[in-house]
């Protein structure tokens, strides 16, 4: 049983099920990556773990506690943090205000955490007074990740953080992701750029039609000829 573990998940957005019994988990200090073809239910699985859709069956366990029925806000207070794929920053608010909103549930002084985020993403420190909507795509993703880190989460969930950013920015972001994982945070990530993501993954999940097709370490999946042929373009 991992630190965060979703098991036997069934559910969807009201209509037919999208998830058909998939299981996903991640431990502290690890990077887990979910890959798979379009429509495999990668993002849906992630949202299910965060409580953003109703599960018909299956359970979500965080730190040996069943949280399957908790609303997302309560999962935030338990140390889960989620970066959605789209609209993941407050565009009309400054970088600093974005981070402040990330720390909304905290009552203590969050300045040290903000300084940590600024040292992780130095460019944000320079642009702290600029509205997040005026930043480039890569910088926005940094704001989004930074906002999610403000709660000092134990689990950070990223839904396609590199969608629409250049390869250089992607490498840069993945480096930061590894850095964050090293501080003992569990990172669960859905990625389109499967090959690059699996390279940094301690655990990889290949989902197809809402079910686990392959589960292994990132390196093992990359080495598996069948996975390469079917999902990584040879």
């Amino acid at each position: 049983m991992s630190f965060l573990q979703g098991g036997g998940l069934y559910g969807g957005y009201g209509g037919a099920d999208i998830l058909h019994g998939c299981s996903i988990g991640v431990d502290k200090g690890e990077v887990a990556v979910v890959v798979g073809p379009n429509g495999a239910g990668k993002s849906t699985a992630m949202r299910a773990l965060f409580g953003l859709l109703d599960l018909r069956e299956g359970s979500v366990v965080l730190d040996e506690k069943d949280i399957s029925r908790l609303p997302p806000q309560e999962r935030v207070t338990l140390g889960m943090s989620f970066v959605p794929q789209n609209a993941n920053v407050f565009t009309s608010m400054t970088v600093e205000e974005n981070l402040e909103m990330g720390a909304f549930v905290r009552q203590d002084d969050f300045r040290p955490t903000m300084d940590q985020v600024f040292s992780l993403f130095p460019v944000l420190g320079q642009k702290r007074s600029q509205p997040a909507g005026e930043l480039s795509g890569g910088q926005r993703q940094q704001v989004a990740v930074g906002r999610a880190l403000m709660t000092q989460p134990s689990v950070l969930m990223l839904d396609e953080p590199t969608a629409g950013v250049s390869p250089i920015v992607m490498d840069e972001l993945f480096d930061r992701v590894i850095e964050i994982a090293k501080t003992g945070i569990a990172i669960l990530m859905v990625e389109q750029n499967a090959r690059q993501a699996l390279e940094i993954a301690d655990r990889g999940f290949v989902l197809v039609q809402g079910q686990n097709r392959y589960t292994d370490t990132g390196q093992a999946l990359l080495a598996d000829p069948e996975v390469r042929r079917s999902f990584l373009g040879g």
Partner: protein
Amino acid sequence: MTDILNALVLLANFVLVPGLTYGSQLALGALGVTMIYAVLRFSNFGHGETMSFGAMITILTTWWLQEKGITFGVLPTALLALPVGIIATVVMCLLFDRVVYRYYRREKANPVTYLIVSVGILFILSGLVRFIIGPQDRVFADGERFIMKARAFKQMTGLDQGLAIKTTQGVTVVTAIVIVALIFWFLNRTRTGKSMRAYSDNEDLALLSGINPAKVVAITWVITGALAAIAGTLYGLDKGYKPFTYLGLVLPIFASAIVGGVGNPLGAIAGGFVVAFSELLLTFAYKRVIAYLTPGDWIPEGLVQLLSTDYKLAVSFVILVIVLLVKPTGIFSGKTL
């Protein structure tokens, strides 16, 4: 030289001072509309009647205070009664939200449904107000009537034209400045204010950040109710209170909010003044100003008025149409706080 000064004083007396006053009233009203739009995402047509309700409670309290012999010196007693009006209006707004709007929020009703619901509340409120205070005209301004009298100004400056500033006009502008400063301080400097902006900007992300939507909605109604009571009272003080006029007031208020960029508080204020000054400048009779500015004794034959004052309301419509055609997002792009 004195001719030019006379012309300027004439314009100040009939356009600038009334424009600033009316603009402040519209700005405060539009601010309330824009807040609801930004956070609850619907056009609240009941806002004019909410203002009327606030003004009514203030008037009733003013009468009660006057009966007790309590006045506010040179200032209108209504200012003392205003806090009661604010509290009553806030309670009323929260009550309507709890009983009516909350249901539609849970149903995830679309904005058109909300709009119709707000029209329903408009009728309930306007009936309630007429039932309690009656449909007549009420003048409840007391205290000193003028800050500056026309005659005193003439004596002071030796000009032919006088500049009169009513106490209610001064009170309106000063109150509006204080309230707007408070609102901006609240939205930009406080944690709660920022959470409102965050919710308005991106509802889903606000939820992911642990911002409690129920609290944001409640605070929005508190602010809107307070703004409505203040705007309604100031308008009534300045122009006399009559329930019917508040129905008509909804139009220039919406025009202000949309012209400025609905959902944007800065836009609401700018829009208020744009609409107010357009109405006044287009319906002002320039005859005497031109007489002063042209050499010799020539006086234009007509009134040199672009529009009859009967068309005042049409001006805000025309501005509205022009803005929607040319720049639908308004002067300041709207939609977020």
